[in-house]
């Protein structure tokens, strides 16, 4: 699956996007655990529920199953307009 990062989340990961393929990541909660392990700085933001998640360009608030070709985005609250 393709993971995209935006704004200061991208500054932390140092990647705009990356492909993650692990048979251990079957849903969004498992992806979050994986991300925190890879980028420990994101842990406190994840815990404070500051981060937003989108799967295939739709906001996702709860845990959902992820498929291989899904595009998951992780970003801070938006500030457009």
């Amino acid at each position, binding site marked *: 699956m393709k993971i995209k990062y*935006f*704004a200061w989340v991208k500054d932390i990961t140092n990647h705009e996007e990356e492909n993650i393929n692990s048979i251990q990541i079957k849903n969004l909660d498992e992806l979050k655990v994986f991300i925190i392990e890879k980028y420990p700085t994101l842990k406190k933001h994840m815990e404070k529920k500051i981060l937003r998640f989108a799967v295939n360009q*739709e906001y996702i608030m709860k845990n959902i199953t992820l498929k291989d070709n899904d595009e998951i985005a992780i970003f801070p609250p938006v500030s*457009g307009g």
Partner: protein
Amino acid sequence: MIKIQKKDFNSEEEINKIKNLHSNVGAVTSFIGYVREENDYKKVRSINLEVYKEMAYKQFEKIISKANLNWKLVDSLIIHRYGKLNVNSKIVLVACFSSHRKDSFESCNFIMDYLKKDAPFWKNEFYNNKNEWLTNSN
């Protein structure tokens, strides 16, 4: 119509292009957002506006559909810029076209409400000697 672009726009021309298609439009309410010189007591020089483009298109289409369910709209337009924008630059134009005034006013306000809350854009403000990401919380 939805446009997500780096370049500036001319609101008269953009509105005319759509108005010219519809003789039953009597009312156009529009909102233009600009980069302000001062934010939170800090002097802003420019902003860099980052976008998740594919998601922005999808979300804008969704909100326009919702607006069409709630109001009698003839047409609608969202132009949102991204990239480096200096102070006083336009950031966004939302225009709602209807026969009567109430529909255009309320739907334009509704679309802006949504856009501020959910559209995937992030402002990085540049001051004299530093820069800072803006977020609602944090």
